[in-house]
């Protein structure tokens, strides 16, 4: 399949994520949008990895194939860790303010 389709999909997902972060005030939704952006990048990584595999990997060694895709797992692990911390913050926020509206967060300023 043409790489351009993957790029287009990834770009769409990423843009959706950005717009979500910008326009929504609900912390959970923002959080989900950030995950969406992360996964858009993941998708792109996998796609490029697959693309390059065909051209260069064969020349070097058979075991090389798919190495780049390992990176995606790393990202997933980091994302999972981030989710746990982030969700914990949101839960604490909800307990304190009874709201998950991020605009309440500017109270930290004072």
């Amino acid at each position, binding site marked *: 399949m043409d790489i351009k389709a993957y790029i287009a999909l990834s770009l769409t997902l990423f843009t959706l994520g*950005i717009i979500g*972060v*910008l326009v929504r*005030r609900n912390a959970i939704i923002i959080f989900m949008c950030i995950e969406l952006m992360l996964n858009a990048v993941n998708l792109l990584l996998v796609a490029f990895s697959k693309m390059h595999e065909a051209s260069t990997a064969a020349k070097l060694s058979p075991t090389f194939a798919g190495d780049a895709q390992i990176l995606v797992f790393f990202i997933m692990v980091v994302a999972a860790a981030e989710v746990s911390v982030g969700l914990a913050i949101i839960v604490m926020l909800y307990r304190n303010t009874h709201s998950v509206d*991020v*605009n309440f*967060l*500017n109270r*930290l*300023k004072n």
Partner: protein
Amino acid sequence: MNNVLQIVWLIPVLPLIGFLINGAGRNVLSKGISGFIGSAVVLGSFLLSVFVFMQVKSGNTHVAHYFNFINVDMLKIGFDFKIDQLSSLFLLIITGVGFLIHVYSTSYMHEEPSKDFAKYFAYLNLFVFSMLLLVMGANYVIMFIGWEGVGLCSYLLIGYWFKNNDYTNAAKKAFIMNRIGDLGFLLAVFWLIAKLGTVDYQSVFDVVANPKTNPLTAFDITGITLLLFVGATGKSAQIPLYTWLPDAMAGPTPVSALIHAATMVTAGIYMIARSNILYTMAPHTQHVVAVIGLATGVLAATIALKQNDIKKVLAYSTVSQLGYMFLGLGVGAYTGAVFHVMTHAFFKALLFLGAGSVIHAMGGEQDMRNMGGLNKHMRTTHMTFLLGCLAIAGMPPFSGFFSKDEILASAYAKNPVLWGIGVITAMMTAFYMFRLYAMTFKGQFRGTHEQEHHLHESPAAITIPLIVLAILAVAGGWVGIPEVFMHGGHKLEAFLEPVFASSNAITAKHEMSHSTEYMLMGVSVAGALVALLYALNVFSKYQKSEKESTGISKILENKWYVDELYNAIIVNPIKAISAFLNNIVERKLIDGLVNGTGKVVNYGSRQLRWLQSGQVGAYVLLMVIGILLLFIIQLFL
């Protein structure tokens, strides 16, 4: 080094010691002691000067080296004294007349509290010290030390009565005007250093006089001599820097005598006579000197015609006589100028001290309109004063005749027009001097009754110096009797010959027929005599009138409004500029720039603060915009 003249350092050091004793002990010394010390040290210097003069006369001249003053790189300036014909003559005049003035002061200043009395003598001694340094120095820097020193002393003495604001203003004016001249002098010295690497008279003159070694262009010499002349105009009160001298009358009268007769004002003449070779080689400068000298002579004489303050008349007459001397220098009659310095020292000191005696008798009154008929009360003062007046008016055979005549003859040889104006000035001199004489001593007394009661002849300490000076004023000119009258009569010229030898070698000797010379003398004497008799006749019958003067005489009374002019074109603009710089440039512009920078930073920071809103969304938006911008720059630009 074993020359007996090596001890000349004592001559200036004695007055310095007097200054230190009187200055340090002014609270403990009685008037008698401080007066005695003050006079004795100058007497000591005078005796030494006589000894030095005898030595020089027998042919022993000497440059005494004491220590290195400034010795850096190529420039070597020694603390050296030069004893030759010119300086030994000036030494005699300064210490001799100076001593008489000191003696006179012991009586004149007797009413001062003893603390101030000692201070006065300390200043007087310092004055003599500075003047001695000035004439004894063997290079321009030592001369400059004395040069500024007399400026300082005149400042101190003119402002001696420092409670009076007018007096301190006059003192300040004297100092500042002198400083303007001093700047010219200094620049000339720097010019010499830059071109020749030396300021020593002997090496400068030797190098310059020899056409083979002379590194100075005509422009250099003209520049140097003009700048030196600027210095001389300040010190010797010539146009344009003369206005301080009449104001200097604020000081005690003996001080005026000292400044005007023996010391300070003759410094400019001495300096030019000393540098005669430079001036001889700069004809343009000589021309300027002659013209300025003559112009000053005329201007001051016209002002003197209408003054009523006895000291002011004498002051302007000094300015006028100094103009004469510069005329002499300008036409190359160096001997004549020095001769006139000498005779002028005698008769002007006499006149000032006489005027002081009158003021003393009048209880401080200086206005001649309130005097008159004093000849009955003050015989000695009257007689000596008359002799002084005759001398300054140029009547033969008094001293002023010979010296003035010599200058006028040289001026005629150069240009008859100069001579003509000179004769007119001489007539004015005779007129105002006899106006002064007649208003003071002749006619009826016009003062108050208390003053009349108070009138008395002054004590011996005042009259004896007057008598001595009167003898000198009469006979002082006989050392310079011109060739026409007596062969080999001009002893002074022969004596000063070595000093002016190199100048005389360059200038063509002008021979004048005896008949011309007689004619010139006849005209000037006749003119002066007419003016003299007319003044005597008119002002012996002087009556006080309250009439406001008008026209030209009002202008003359106000001294041609020169002071006002200087205020308008120099003093006030400087004040205005300074105020402008202070209020606008310093406060608004420079400080404004500095503070403005601070304000801009402050303001900018306050504006930037709004970006820190605390809204997460806003931060993210900014971030996204930033990322997009980077993309655009990276991909499209």
